[in-house]
């Protein structure tokens, strides 16, 4: 259902990507030592493209999103190294004021829990007009008119009345629509959506994902869609990055990634998802063991202790995220002994 034609995985040569992340590392200080939440991530994202970022809890996907956004910077609690360029601007070299400008206009963020993303004692209208007046320089009346238009854009009925309501008067789906409207207020080029539908029911989830897709088509923004839910990402992203223990283990076009995973973790993750198309009481392929301790991660491949294909070298030598040798679509995986590719044309 609702498949969207995939853009080519990478445009040949051409213009500079909208987002460039280079060897990004985010270490969070803990009493036991530094926790390597994001450990050397590099990726790019083109204008108008959707990148899915999937992984289980603790894989570093949310920390990556927030570091890219510039919400996490080097300070008493954490150290950030590497580079994040959004539209050419180095997010972590900007000062606080520069970053505020960026958040207001260049990037928008949608968080998982819309109730905590909204201020409970402020009306919906205030949430929306604040950034319009601050960054857009609109007058009070113009900001209000624009806020109404934004609510209409995200499919909220009776927008004029909703502007005067408090967040608690709205349902979860409505609140998430308001959060999306806030993120879109100044038409950002990049939207980072961190688990935007995890707190919502499945019918509402579909509405919100459809909404994001439509807005992307209309406004031409790039989206980074962070989710633990493979199905959510599968139908919506052009490319998908799978994260495990702070690193990207596989990165490929959504269709090829899900049809024929090469990294054993991607394969195992896909196999552990219950499917509607299978008969009841089918045994699921669980992944034994637990993710590594990110304060003192193991040498070598971090998935090796849980991997069904692991050999001796996996425990010693860390694999690098390398592009696939043979031609075809651009895809990369970090594995010494990848899953055998499916023969082309097989069903």
């Amino acid at each position: 259902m609702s498949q969207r034609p995939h853009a080519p995985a990478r445009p040949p040569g051409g213009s500079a990507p909208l987002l460039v992340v280079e060897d990004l590392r985010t270490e969070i200080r803990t009493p036991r030592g530094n926790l390597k939440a994001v450990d050397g991530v590099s990726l790019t994202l083109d204008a108008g493209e959707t990148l899915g970022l999937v992984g289980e809890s603790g894989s570093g996907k949310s920390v990556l999103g927030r570091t890219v956004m510039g919400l996490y910077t080097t300070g008493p609690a954490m150290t950030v190294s590497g580079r994040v360029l959004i539209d050419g601007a180095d997010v972590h070299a900007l000062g606080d004021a520069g970053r505020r400008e960026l958040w207001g206009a260049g990037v928008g963020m949608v968080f998982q829990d819309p109730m905590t993303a909204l201020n409970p004692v402020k009306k919906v209208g205030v949430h929306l007009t604040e950034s319009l007046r601050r960054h857009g320089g609109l007058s009070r009346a113009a900001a209000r008119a624009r806020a109404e238009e934004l609510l209409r854009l995200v499919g909220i009925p009776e927008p004029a009345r909703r502007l005067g309501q408090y967040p608690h008067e709205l349902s979860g789906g409505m609140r998430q629509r308001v959060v999306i409207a806030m993120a879109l207020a100044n038409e950002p080029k990049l939207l980072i959506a961190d688990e935007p539908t995890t707190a919502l029911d499945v019918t509402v989830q579909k509405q919100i994902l459809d909404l994001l897709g439509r807005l992307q088509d209309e406004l031409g923004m790039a989206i980074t869609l962070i989710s633990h839910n493979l199905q959510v990402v599968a139908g919506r992203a052009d490319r998908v990055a799978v994260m495990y223990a702070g690193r990207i283990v596989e990165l490929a076009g959504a269709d090829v990634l899900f049809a024929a995973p090469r990294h054993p973790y991607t394969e195992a993750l896909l196999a552990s998802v219950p499917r509607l198309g299978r008969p009841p009481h089918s045994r699921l392929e669980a992944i034994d063991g637990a993710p590594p301790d990110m304060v003192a991660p193991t040498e070598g491949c971090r998935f090796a202790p849980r991997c069904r294909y692991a050999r001796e070298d996996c425990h010693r030598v860390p694999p690098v995220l390398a592009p696939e040798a043979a031609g075809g679509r651009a895809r990369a995986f970090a594995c010494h002994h990848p899953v055998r590719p499916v023969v082309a044309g097989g069903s």
Partner: protein
Amino acid sequence: MAGTGSAHMRSGQDRVLVVDNLVVEYPAGRGQKVHAVSGVSFDLLDGETLGILGESGCGKSSAGRAVMQLPPPTSGSVRLDGAELTGLAPRALRTRRRKMQMILQDPVSSLNPRRRVRDLVAEGPSIWGTRPARERIESMISSVGLDPAVVWDRRPHELSGGQCQRICIARALMLDPRALICDEPVSSLDVSVQAQILNLLEETKTRYGLSMVFIAHDLAVVKNISDRIMVMYLGKVCEVTPSARMSESALHPYTRLLLASVPEADLGPGGGIELTTGEAGREAPGDAALALPGGTPGGLPDVVPVLSGGTAPAWPGDAGPAVGRARTGGRSADGVGDGAIELPSPLNPPSGCRFRTRCPLATARCADEEPLLRQVGDGHYLACHNVGD
């Protein structure tokens, strides 16, 4: 949708749990009441797993808790192995309820943070007067897939969510129950851990001869573990169907909406592991689910265009602005649109069929007359005026 019907109830001696006309209402101040569960009946055969499926606010958890008498339902009857549980004095209730145990959504907050694993697992029998032998506790911990030597002295905060859920299952099993009521037992777990716990529940059920009520919102999870699925909406039952045929034969507009909302079809082949052997056993559940096969009993073709594509009809009650749907691009070609559709208030649910405000097929009759559950196929029951004839 009705639920006041009882056509799906079975007779016979092997029913472990019989719930009849269950009503749960909560006072909401100013003389108002939340109608959480409004006349739901179901039964559970020996060794069967009944899945209760629905979105938040549909009353599935309230129904599960009312079965456990936590708190007792406003009215209705709950019989466990033939013994009535409602209206009992607390002491008598505790004795009779022992054979039914509950597994909750958040395994960490279900466990007393100050107790150690050995005491947590032994707690049930200890309350009943006999602290179990060490060997029994150890074997129970092993049977839920943990190493007793490792976790014996640990407290809940030293365990992962999946490990805590294993401990919760071990605790429940110590009392040798007949039935488990599982309320969203895997919703807070990662997919790989979710798979472990679902496998464990399946194994446990077979090994200990349990019956199970499995309450969840995830269609694929419910389908995987259940024999029979009951779909609820706003405190009523929409449809009861054998789980094996749910995707293909479900008829109720709400069940079809749920199926159409699952992003499943986009995930690709049925299982990564099989892929390595070359055979790409591609199952296309999503699309197959949307096209009613011709042979389906009572499959009305007019449901299909509404929910699976083509023109978007105006949904009564969908207050989404016209612009929301008019601009809808290829990704939302199911006619649902991305405009906001609100759940009616459980304080004042719609008359007649409660789904009618969101239903594309609703007619005047749906507002006046509540549809009753009736049989439409083998083990398949439906509460709708407009489909299934």
